């Protein structure tokens, strides 16, 4: 298992460790390699030691492809082992133009490797979603060498923690509450989200709040300033609760209090917060971009356009229509059980890896 880095509360790290555990449970011997690892319960080996561990053609290298990394590409070009590209997707650089030249460069470099990986004709291209696999199918990768397994996650741990509403509040006044979870970045639709909040406050309930949970990379500070300015222009400073270091208990409380998880991101390779919302019974209102429509399935209100009025009226409807709310909660829980629960993921992984059994 090769990954550019491991850290807590990171989707790629959670997938790497979850997949490692699932493969071990299937009887495979698995070792994790990474240039750096922080606060993870796994004996991680240095990435440049991986050559010494490869014994021959029976071995399988699973590379978690989420940024540009020369080392991994070189390894895949020269190794005798069988190769699995676990593709988490890379945000197109256009989203960062004007906000961060560093991100533009990193994303450009990351996506530039797509052609090279497609040309390698690896034994398996393992996408987190059908949307991710489109990047390879467009480059001529044989569908028989492709499979979709949603990412492993820590949602079960989230279900087990007690809610901590000290910072998020428990919505005691009954005001409508929007929740957005994910890092603050130009592709995440924060500006549209503030617009939706504004529409709700102007047309429905002036008390409406937005709970925004996620970190802002200092390299995207310019975008953070633009979001804060937009909030100020809309007069919504007192109605946005931004938490950049939420604990699992606080995340649980936020999901419990919210009328809906509002996901207006324009680009997602999978979007784990949607799975968290389904498991915790929080209805979803989303923009059906990229992988979002597939991840949500029938378990949410999905729009094809990022219209703040549509989003706002969806929240109003959810806030007042208990029948709709209950129906979406049930559909979400059902989709989690059948598609995204750990047992379902392990089963999908076993089926995808069955090709290596011979």
């Amino acid at each position: 298992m090769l990954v550019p880095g491991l850290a807590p509360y990171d989707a790629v790290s959670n997938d790497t460790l979850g997949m490692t555990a699932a493969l071990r449970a299937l009887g495979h011997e698995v070792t994790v390699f990474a240039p750096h690892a922080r606060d993870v319960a796994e004996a991680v080996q240095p990435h440049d030691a991986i050559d010494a561990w490869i014994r021959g053609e029976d071995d399988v290298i699973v590379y978690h492809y989420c940024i540009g990394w020369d080392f991994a590409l070189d390894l895949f070009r020269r190794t005798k082992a069988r190769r699995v590209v676990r593709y988490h997707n890379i945000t197109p650089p256009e989203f960062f133009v004007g906000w961060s030249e560093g991100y533009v460069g990193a994303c450009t470099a990351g996506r530039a490797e797509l052609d090279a990986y497609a040309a390698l004709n690896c034994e398996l291209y393992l996408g987190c979603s059908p949307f991710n696999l489109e990047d390879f199918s467009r480059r001529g990768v044989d569908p028989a060498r492709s499979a979709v397994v949603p990412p492993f996650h820590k949602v079960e741990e989230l279900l087990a923690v007690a809610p901590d509403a000290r910072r998020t509040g428990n919505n005691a006044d009954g005001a409508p509450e929007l929740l957005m979870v994910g890092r603050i970045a130009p592709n995440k639709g924060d500006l549209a989200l503030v617009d939706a909040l504004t529409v709700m406050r102007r047309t429905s309930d002036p008390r409406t709040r937005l709970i925004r949970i996620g970190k802002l990379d200092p390299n995207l500070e310019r975008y953070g300033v633009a979001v804060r300015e937009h909030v100020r222009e809309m007069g919504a400073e007192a109605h946005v609760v931004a938490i950049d270091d939420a604990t699992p208990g606080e995340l649980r409380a936020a999901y419990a209090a919210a009328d809906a998880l509002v996901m207006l991101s324009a680009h997602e390779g999978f979007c784990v917060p949607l799975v968290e919302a389904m498991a915790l019974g929080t209805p979803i209102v989303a923009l059906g971009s990229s992988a979002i429509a597939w991840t949500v399935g029938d378990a949410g209100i999905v729009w094809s356009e990022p219209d703040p009025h549509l989003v706002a009226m969806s929240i109003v409807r959810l806030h007042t229509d208990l029948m709709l709310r209950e129906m979406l909660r049930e559909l979400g829980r059902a989709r989690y059980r059948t598609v995204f629960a750990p047992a379902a993921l392990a089963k999908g992984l076993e089926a995808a890896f069955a090709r290596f059994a011979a």
Partner: protein
Amino acid sequence: MSSSRADNADANDSYLERVKAEIRAEADAARMRAPLPRKEAPPPRRAESLSHDGTIDRARRDYTIAELTGEHYTAFVDGAFRALLKRPPDEPGLEAQVRLLAAGAPKAEVLGNLRYSPEGRTIGTNVQGLMPRYALAKLGRVPVVGFVLNWLIAFAGLPMLLRHQRAADTRNAAQFQDAQLQAGRIADDVRGTNARLDGVRSELGDANARLGELKGAFDQRVGTLEARVGENESRLADVPSLRHYVHAVNHWLVSLQSAIDGIEGASDANKAYADSLIAAIYDASEVAAARGARQAAWIEALRGRLGSGARVVDLGSGDGSWAAMLAGLGADVAGFESNGVLAQRARERGLNVAAGDPLTALTRCNDASLDAVTVSGAATGDAFATLLSESARALKPGGWLLITAGEPRRLGDLGGARIGVLDRPIATAMFGAAGFAVDAAFGGPDAVLARRA
């Protein structure tokens, strides 16, 4: 099962689509009511030039002419102030330099004016190549010499001027294109605003029409109410006489209630008095002794006929002395006594004796539920017939009916408690007709013991 799940999924999809259509309609209405101040998110910021960012790099002391002349008009003058004098331009200074530019002065002259001003010399910023160009610009202002010099410079600079002219044309075309785009956006906004205004105008028209309808309906309702008020006013004229009648009827009802209370009070007092007389009879020592002797004979007759736990109803329990004897046989006894004074005494002895009409109590017993019915003070006439029929109904087959004379034994009716002495041959015939067999072995003088067939 799977078909049912598919049906549910289809139903959910259909319901969700309907909800989404409703939400879309609500969003359209909300968009008309409260449009956002702008439709697009703010564009990404770009790195800004020296003259635009409002900052002053005080440490920098070296510039090139090209760096300082990239901007035009006020932006150029603003940047020159910040670079050469390390401060924003004051209003008169800005105006003077802009006026120079408007009069055709080269940018190098403006830069030189600032750089070689006393303030500029104190700061001492170096602008490469500025001095000769500034000197030429100033020399160009000298009469005759300046005229010739300008001609020479202009002639020498013709190729450059042509190049600048072409560049200016391109720049103007680009700006014109930008202006057109901007105008297009403004036109779109105006069209949007007009559309919203049309919508608002239409809504206002609808609202006015609705208001007219409501006003008509309101006027009609007011007319109806006024007519009814007129009718009610005429009716109200009769109210004083009606009030008189109501008061009179009320007074009569109060009097009637008072009279009824008096009658009921007298009846209750009479009943209590009668009860106390009968109780007095019970208290008489001779009567009590005679009763005790009779009851001793009756209880001996029942001993052996009633098993332990037998359910017995005793009608006319008196002060409970007979019920106590029955209980002594192990029977489960429920007694009923119409005399309130005696019933109270029985309860004070710890016996289950209720105050009330004994015959009514018998009619409330279940069919074939009793092992024995004992009666003290037999009823007469219709009441006696009811006693026999109800006893036959309530007794189990083989159950016992004991009817005895009460107290006083020969005084006839008193206080509603009818008392008689039974004639054995008549009783035998009557009991036989009612489904009982009189026990010939029981020879009590004032009692009959019969068994339910």
